[in-house]
């Protein structure tokens, strides 16, 4: 008696492989490209050094993690917005609308970005006041 040999499928169907690979790569591309880029543009003129400060007529805003001051006078956060608007509304030229921002070293970015946002929406141009590092040799 002759046994019939069963027919096995020896080759896997590969015709759809390209389509599958294509769809997989499109999927990974879409997943990988979701990086946040929305935000706020800011023009920051070069920072003022301490010695130039006396000559400038600009408003000075001081920032600490909990307080905000305008020309040395402390304000609550909700008062700051209206006060800076009032001050900047009186300024006519662009040079007058420069607001010198002096932040304490421990001010978090989130607070800084919120305060500079208020200043810019009020028409101010933020410039940074950075402390210059000086090395003093003691003999």
């Amino acid at each position: 008696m002759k046994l019939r040999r069963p027919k096995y499928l020896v080759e896997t169907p590969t015709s759809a492989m390209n389509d599958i690979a294509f769809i997989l790569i499109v999927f990974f591309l879409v997943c990988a490209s979701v990086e946040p880029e929305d935000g706020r543009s800011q023009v920051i003129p070069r920072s003022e050094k301490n010695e130039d400060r006396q000559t400038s007529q600009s408003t000075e805003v001081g920032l600490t993690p909990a307080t905000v001051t305008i020309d040395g006078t402390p304000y609550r956060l909700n008062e700051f917005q209206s006060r800076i608007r009032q001050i900047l509304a009186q300024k006519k030229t662009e040079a007058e609308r420069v607001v010198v921002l002096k932040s304490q070293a421990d001010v978090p970015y989130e607070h800084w970005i919120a305060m500079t946002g208020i200043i810019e929406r009020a028409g101010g141009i933020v410039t940074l006041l950075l402390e210059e590092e000086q090395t003093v040799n003691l003999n």
Partner: protein
Amino acid sequence: MPSMAMGDIAFLLLIFIVLLARARDESHLVWQPATGTELVKPANRNASVVIDKQNVTYLNGRPVQVENLAAELEALLGDLPAGGRTVLFKVHKDVIAEFFEPAIEAVSEAGGELHHVLEPAPNPSAVP
């Protein structure tokens, strides 16, 4: 029309695009954006500065000393015209001024146009 090779061509093109995209990959950096309102998309993106949770500064995904940031940005931006010198600035929300202000100063010194990357505030009226 012979369309048998179309899949292979598309596959190779996509690999090429993926490789290009990986060159500026910053997915390994841990930072959480601060919140803001009235957010806009950047006009272009020429460089990206990240300050992560550990206060480490990166330029295009590569760690960099803040003292060298201005020079490296200048080299990167070259003679690009104004309006085309956007530097994406991604800072972890809790990083303090001691670390991010010198980086802002460096961007300004290099003639870069700063674009703070923020996330929309869940309740915009709560943001001052």
